[in-house]
């Protein structure tokens, strides 16, 4: 079903990409304390002994964070398991305890997958809970820690719950990486775990990328690009890095395993200090936190509460309209559109018509949707399906149904769509052309230019009772019938 061509970094080369997406969970409080999990507060106001890591303080697990992790795990088809927290030890001033409480060899979610709109299936190795660090602001010296005159630390973010979702190296090009993040984001938002705002840092992406000649199956040395904070940065950084790596191989130079950053302004990746590579994090089980063992009953309850995901909608559409184009499909499966389409399909409206009305009319009306409920939408489409209204009448009626809460039949009457079914329109057109025998003969003989004259006569006589396009349809049909009779 994959409909996209994979674009390599250069002819004969392909990307191997794995993504680590860190998402801030939308819990009321931080991961291990009662401080509000808020964004944009005054620096160092949402803090306490625990998230400041003061001597003697202890972490206590936030049950809501576990709950969100379970929902995400279920949405990613992962195994939810009894999990353990570990300490990741390293010294850094934004980390109040000089260790981060994270999950290591037994994450809460393991072995899931995510299906992309293209049909590609990307493996999810793990999705684990961890605490965020504080935020460093370096003043002077270009804002980098090495050269700054001094640095300020805001610990409001310290202890904010993060879920780190690690994909398998299954992603094959930057476009697919973008698609993966977008799809993942929609899931995180759908289960209520994240607000999905990349620009506020509530979704941050690290990319592991390597390249290899097409056909090679082994992985080559990979580079980690840190902190890609928009989809645009993600694709640009991956494209740059792919080209850079191919160039290195082609020039016969050594590829170093390293961590790089994306310089948005200069559109290049650059190496971070090598020192950071030498870290031995000395992981060991966090003695202050018992393992988190989700209750199977809770897991089942959360499973039954899961919202419907885009992949489910795609599958439903594939059943009724297997040939539907990707663009149309992605347009109609959005949260805004889908309830209308689902209602229409449930009411046995012709599927291609339902999709067309959603993609063309409904999408344009979403901002002023007002009184147009899914059931009223279905009522209008049924009139069209039964041939009682023409296409252009339907468009007018849908807009009117947004603005005016009157019942649909009354709206039809109000708009004067009295002679609205296709047979009635045909009768009107037949009556008019009967009085224009000469022009009608020329039209039947194939002179399309006369159509305008004939339709003009129809419209002059029946005004807004019928639409031009309905009249044109009726004219075409009359002509077909006449030709069929004469042959």
């Amino acid at each position: 079903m994959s409909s996209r061509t994979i674009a390599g970094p250069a002819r004969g080369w392909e990307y191997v990409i794995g993504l680590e997406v860190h998402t801030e969970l939308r819990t009321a409080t931080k991961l291990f304390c009662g401080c509000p999990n808020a964004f944009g507060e005054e620096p160092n106001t949402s803090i306490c002994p625990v998230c400041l890591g003061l001597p003697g303080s202890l972490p206590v697990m936030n049950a809501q964070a576990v709950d969100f992790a379970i929902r995400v795990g279920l949405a990613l088809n992962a195994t939810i398991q009894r999990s353990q927290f570990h300490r990741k030890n390293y010294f850094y001033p934004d980390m109040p305890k000089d260790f981060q409480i994270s999950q290591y060899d037994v994450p809460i979610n393991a072995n899931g997958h995510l299906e992309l709109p293209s049909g590609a299936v990307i493996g999810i190795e793990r999705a684990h809970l961890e605490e965020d660090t504080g935020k460093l602001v370096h003043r002077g010296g270009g804002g980098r820690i090495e050269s700054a005159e001094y640095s300020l630390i805001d610990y409001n973010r310290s202890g904010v719950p993060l879920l780190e979702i690690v994909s398998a190296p299954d992603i094959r090009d930057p476009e697919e990486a973008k698609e993966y993040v977008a799809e993942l984001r929609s899931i995180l938002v759908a289960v209520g775990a994240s607000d999905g705002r990349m620009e506020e840092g509530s979704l941050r992406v690290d990319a592991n990328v390597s390249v290899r000649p097409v056909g090679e199956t082994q992985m080559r040395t990979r580079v980690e690009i840190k902190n890609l904070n928009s989809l645009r940065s993600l694709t640009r950084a991956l494209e740059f890095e792919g080209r850079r790596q191919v160039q290195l191989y082609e020039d016969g130079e050594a590829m170093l395993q390293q961590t790089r950053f994306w310089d948005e302004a200069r559109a290049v990746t650059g190496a971070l200090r090598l020192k950071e590579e030498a870290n031995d994090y000395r992981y060991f089980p966090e003695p202050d936190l018992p393992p988190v063992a989700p209750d199977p009953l809770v897991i089942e309850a959360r499973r039954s509460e899961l919202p419907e995901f885009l992949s489910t909608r795609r599958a439903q559409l594939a059943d009724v309209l297997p040939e539907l184009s990707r663009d149309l499909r992605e347009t109609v499966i959005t949260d805004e559109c889908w309830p209308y389409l689902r209602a229409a399909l449930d009411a046995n409206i012709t599927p291609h018509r339902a999709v067309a009305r959603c993609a063309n009319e409904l999408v344009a009306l979403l901002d002023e949707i007002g009184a147009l409920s899914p059931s009223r939408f279905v009522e209008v489409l049924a009139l069209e399906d039964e041939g009682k209204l023409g296409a252009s009448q339907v468009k007018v009626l849908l807009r009117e149904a947004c603005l005016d809460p009157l019942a649909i039949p009354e709206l039809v009457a109000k708009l004067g769509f009295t002679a609205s079914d296709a047979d009635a329109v045909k009768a009107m057109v037949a009556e008019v052309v009967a009085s224009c025998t000469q022009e009608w003969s020329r039209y039947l003989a194939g002179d399309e230019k006369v159509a305008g004259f004939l339709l003009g006569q129809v419209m002059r006589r029946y005004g807004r009772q019928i639409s031009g396009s309905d009249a044109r349809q009726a004219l075409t049909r009359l002509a077909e019938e006449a030709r069929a009779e004469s042959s």
Partner: protein
Amino acid sequence: MNDEILDWGIRELQRRLESAEVSAVEVLEAYQEQIAIQEPEVDAFLSLDLEAARRRASYQDERRARGERLGRLAGVPVVLKDNLCTINFPTTAASKILDGWVPPYNATVVDRLDEEDAIVLGKTNLDEFAMGSSTENSAFKITRNPHDLDRVPGGSSGGSAAAVASRMALAGLGSDTGGSIRQPAALTGIVGLKPTYGRVSRYGLLAFASSLDQIGPLAASVEDTALVAECIMGHDPRDATSLQEAPPQLLGSLSQGVQGIRIGVVTNLIEAANPEVQAGVEAAIQALARAGAIVEEVALKELAYGLAAYYVVAPAEASSNLARYDGVRYGLREPGVTVEEMMIATRTKGFGPEVKRRIMLGTYALSAGYYDAFYVTAQRVRTFVREAFARAYVSFDLLIAPTSPTTAFRIGERSNDPVEMYRSDVCTIPSNLSGDPAISVPAGVDADGLPIGVQLLGPALSEQVLFRAAFVIEEGLH
């Protein structure tokens, strides 16, 4: 009068306060006088605020005069090991790196003592970050054993033990990671309890080794120890390792005796002790047998491996727990051109040699390539120790052993031989590894008049039986 006041236990004191025979201020004054005499010699305190204590005592007298009902520790002068967070006193862990640091919050146990109207006199000396068995590793002072000022009071809760033993306070709180309550209690001739892991909230205890640390009481008598234990035990939502179980009723069952209680004498731990200590333990065993306990010998060889496992697990956890003392947020900060240089300079100057030694040991044990050989193996040994206890508790209700292989040693005697110092924890460490409770009770004195401690060990949550047996020993050896 003052001497008489110092003789009263907590319940005696409560009776006299309730009958208005004495006021809380008078009690405080008696202790104030005792501190004036003893503290210059013993050096138990790192901070002391007798003015605040007097204000509190005076306020309690007013409340009592108004007919208010006061808490179970009303008027009781207590001391706190200086690794428990207190709003009203600096909390230093006897380390230069925290010199002068005043926490913005109280440890849960401090709040609980406060709710029971205890009167906190001050904070007591300890081995820096509780790492040691003699209180000689304090960055600030050496505390002396009131029974012989040339000798150590034990450690790491040596300050609290010495303060109680010299009657400068009625009770003290300590912390016990490998024997740090029980061993100083033994060496100073008082009672010390290490509760079941999770019985007492660790919130506000400056962590040494989180999976081993437990706060507990020290007092002159079994009864006083039981009362303070009752006051500080119980679930705390701020400590995720805190047990849900309701705190046991200890006082009420204290005199129920040990008739039919099966007690195992741990022969290999007794063999590790010197003959005089062995004799003290034997006297305690006889007292229990006289009271109807069924006493049998048992060898638990696995406990001996506990020492090695402990000196991997405890430093490993400590290396991580002590990382936060980096000069960035509080405590000492030494200048440095870069953040990294500042951190290194601060930690180099702020930590003493024993703390550095353990951070190095622990960092090494957790390092890539060594983790399995050290940390994982130590955890396996820890499981052996737990299993050995579990097997023993099929046949026995309690176990009995020495608390320390020797009585108090001379100041400076072992400070150049850390391994010899570590060995003195051999009898106490197993209970920390298993998380089970244990109590040290005085069992006479040696030829030099130095106190001997006997240790009772029980399975998890067995504090009630432990105290009953401890009470029998106390009565029997009186």
